[in-house]
């Protein structure tokens, strides 16, 4: 009897731990290997002295971040600065990111570029950087400005695209080219502002369309496959799909292909290499590219500007573009340059 109880207790602990882990893992991104490396030292002798920038992002697990990393190193070499590009294992590992910022402050970097994993939790770390007179530049992700101000902290600028305007590009294209749309929206994770902006940015351009479904597929490819299959089951006449990230766009395409549906125009966000292939194959109508490499380059330039004593606008906007079959090759050529 006693043994039984003991075992039961162990099981309960096990389940509790398991569920804690589920919460820990639930996120759009994933887990990633942490690695740090620097560049810029070799080749070009530094013009800008020995400026060292800590570039801290949320993860390195998807193409968005790896392209940003490549862009950061390319820009660092060009501008003759040293960049240390780092990220926690997964996008949800906020505490690890806080530690990275704190370590960067202690190590005495000249500037910190940060893509905050959480809009509030990073505030104290930013304040620490402020107190050490290290300028902080945000890239891709914003933080809670009120909370930052309340703690007396500040950031120099936020570098990134305007999510709403970027999604608008795809919406406008759809509105121009497809009349009588019956649209299915694949939403992201509720509460994530960037993803919500992408949804409304598209939706506001196609107000004449019938919305047959608006469902989340949690930014996951397999989930999107299932959701798309279910939506098509009820609404086989869907002719437009807007997925707010590339993974969901890809899942939708697979479901559409398997079901042999024709004339469904899929649009998504991120311009992953799968997306580019799909545009070539004709299964994807368009994808919004947000040029993470350009964001990286702009952020590094902002660091240099701040170090030179300039004051920056609160939002330094970078360009986004809709990639369709018409400009696919140009975009590819541009991205290939990064790999050289």
């Amino acid at each position, binding site marked *: 009897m006693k043994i039984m109880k003991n075992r039961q207790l162990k099981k309960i602990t096990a389940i509790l731990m398991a569920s804690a882990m589920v919460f820990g893992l639930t996120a759009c991104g994933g887990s990633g290997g942490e690695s740090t490396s620097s560049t810029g030292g070799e080749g070009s002798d530094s013009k800008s002295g020995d400026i060292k920038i800590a570039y801290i992002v949320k993860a390195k697990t998807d193409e968005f971040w790896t392209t940003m990393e490549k862009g950061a190193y390319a820009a660092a070499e060009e501008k003759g600065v040293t960049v240390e590009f780092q990220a926690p294992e997964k996008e949800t590992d906020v505490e690890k990111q806080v530690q990275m910022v704190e370590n960067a402050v202690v190590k005495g970097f000249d500037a910190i570029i940060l893509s905050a994993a959480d809009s509030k939790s990073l505030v104290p770390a930013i304040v620490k950087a402020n107190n050490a007179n290290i300028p902080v530049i945000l890239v891709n992700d914003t933080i809670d400005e009120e909370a930052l101000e309340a703690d007396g902290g500040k950031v120099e600028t936020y570098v990134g695209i305007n999510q709403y305007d970027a999604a608008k590009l795809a919406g406008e294209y759809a509105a121009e080219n497809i009349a009588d749309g019956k649209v299915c929206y694949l939403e992201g994770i509720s509460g994530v502002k960037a993803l919500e902006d992408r949804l409304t940015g598209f939706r506001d351009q196609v107000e004449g369309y019938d919305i047959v*479904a608006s469902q989340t597929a949690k930014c996951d490819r397999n989930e999107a496959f299932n959701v798309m299959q279910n939506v098509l089951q009820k609404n086989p006449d869907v002719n437009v799909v807007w997925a707010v990230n590339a993974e969901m766009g890809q899942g939708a395409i697979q479901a559409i292909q398997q079901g042999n549906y024709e004339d469904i125009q899929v649009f998504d966000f991120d311009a992953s290499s799968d997306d580019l292939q799909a545009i070539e194959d004709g299964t994807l109508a368009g994808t919004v590219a947000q040029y993470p490499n350009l964001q990286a380059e702009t952020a590094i330039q902002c660091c240099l500007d701040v170090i030179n004593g300039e004051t920056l606008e609160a939002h330094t906007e970078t360009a986004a573009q809709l990639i369709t079959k018409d400009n696919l090759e140009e975009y590819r050529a541009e991205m290939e340059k990064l790999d050289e």
Partner: protein
Amino acid sequence: MKKKKIDLSNMSALLVLIVLCILLSIAEPAFHSFANFINILQQVTVIAVLALGVNIVIFTGGIDISVGSVVAFSGIVMGKLVVEGGMPSIVGVAAALVIGAACGTFNGIMIAKFKLQPMIATLAMMSMARGAALTLAGGETITGYSDGFRWIGIGTVPGTQIPVQIIFMILLYLLFYYIMKYRKFGRYIYSIGGNEEATRLSGINVDKFKTLAYTLSGLCAAIASVILVAKLNSAQSTAGQDYEMDAIASCVIGGTSLLGGFGSVWGTFVGAIIMIVIRNGLNLLNVSANLQKLVIGVVILLAVLADSIRNKAAKK
């Protein structure tokens, strides 16, 4: 007496499923069509195959939370070999199965021989396998498989709309049902879960069978991975996150006791279908995903409560 109870546990999950289906059919006419029935079976495949392996581990009184990560790891290895290494698909599939079984066996040895807590040993594997997948692939998605390979995931039985993956799943379930019901292996597994010490004292090599249970769990994860990669045309290091929880939930909803020694293969199948039917039905009704989570949570809770009440009754 015991037999009657097993029947009852199977019945309750099945009953829940039937009630769910009736309700959804009334609420949404698109629900009860043959095509939707096929969709549900296709959507359940990955989780059902994972749950099949995890179920055996739970029968022994253990737990395996590493399966989601093993899905990613074996998938990445296969993708690397086939897409980047240019090897034939069959080699990639074989490698994935070997990796899956090896991860499982490693878990089993740690638990059976080195007496680690199953939760902790598989937690370590969860991290190691995910880490290995990430190290191999980084953030990249490995895409571009042959049509022959993709047939596993999206092909249909000639002349019908039935995806072949459903056939694989059903064959696998039949095989496991046979093993668990009619082979010594099955009886030993239940017996280990029921009373490990007594099983050991009766001269059965408990360590060997426990290890085998974890091997099967890893193997099932690899099979699920092969189907998933073929279905989505992509291997990703982030694949399979949280799948272990769906798999464990399927077992529990299906009437498998987390204390071990009790549960059935078909109950788990029904449990997995219940989870997918809820998602499918709520999708058709265009209900928000947040509510889907809530509903699934309630179903899990009810299932565990039923388990606990049954255990109390069994002790009396």
